């Protein structure tokens, strides 16, 4: 079975532009989460979606938004890009929510590396 897939793998944008990152979860997984990993740091939680509903939001500005589609894939959108948005963006999927199945394991995709110039 395919793991979590993300597209594109790399992206270069300029300040002020908008970007859309895409994620397809493992087949059968209904939860998708997004994380930002700045160079030299651990990943930081941005959003979690389950069954198309937002279930969690991290401490990121409103320029960041996301949605989940009926097929459980997801998009992360970032508006008005800043230099500080340059990072590896990771998508993760899980079968269920940890509030229901506490031992649920989260699997990560390879990430999209975004460079803002």
């Amino acid at each position: 079975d395919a793991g979590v897939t993300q597209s594109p793998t790399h992206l270069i944008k300029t300040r002020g532009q908008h970007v859309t990152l895409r994620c397809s979860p493992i087949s059968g997984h209904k939860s998708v989460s997004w994380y930002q990993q700045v160079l030299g740091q651990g990943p930081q939680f941005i959003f979690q979606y389950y069954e198309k509903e937002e279930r969690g939001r991290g401490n990121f500005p409103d320029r960041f938004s996301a949605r989940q589609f009926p097929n459980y894939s997801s998009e992360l959108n970032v508006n008005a890009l800043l230099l500080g948005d340059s990072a590896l963006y990771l998508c993760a999927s899980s079968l269920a929510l940890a509030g229901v199945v506490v031992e649920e394991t989260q699997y990560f995709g390879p990430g999209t590396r975004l460079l803002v110039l």
Partner: protein
Amino acid sequence: AQSVAQPEDQVNVAEGNPLTVKCTYSVSGNPYLFWYVQYPNRGLQFLLKYITGDNLVKGSYGFEAEFNKSQTSFHLKKPSALVSDSALYFCAVRDILDTGGFKTIFGAGTRLFVKA
């Protein structure tokens, strides 16, 4: 608030020697702890988790971790290191949200170098 700390930026070990990557945690409630590994230009790979039960957790690629409640630690170990184990290792704790969702809170990471 849930948090984890990885006190070492880097760990160096010779191939064939045992390795330990340290992690301490601070949680309210039950700790749900994880280890992930990241290879260059790759995403995170799940190694193992502690939810409840035995304090010694066995995971992928020969790794194991010991949960110690009194010392609030969850150190990653391997009896015999391989050069291919060289990577960035993250300790993480799960924070379950009021919505039933969850977020994973990561440490800063520890870079492991295994020398041949």
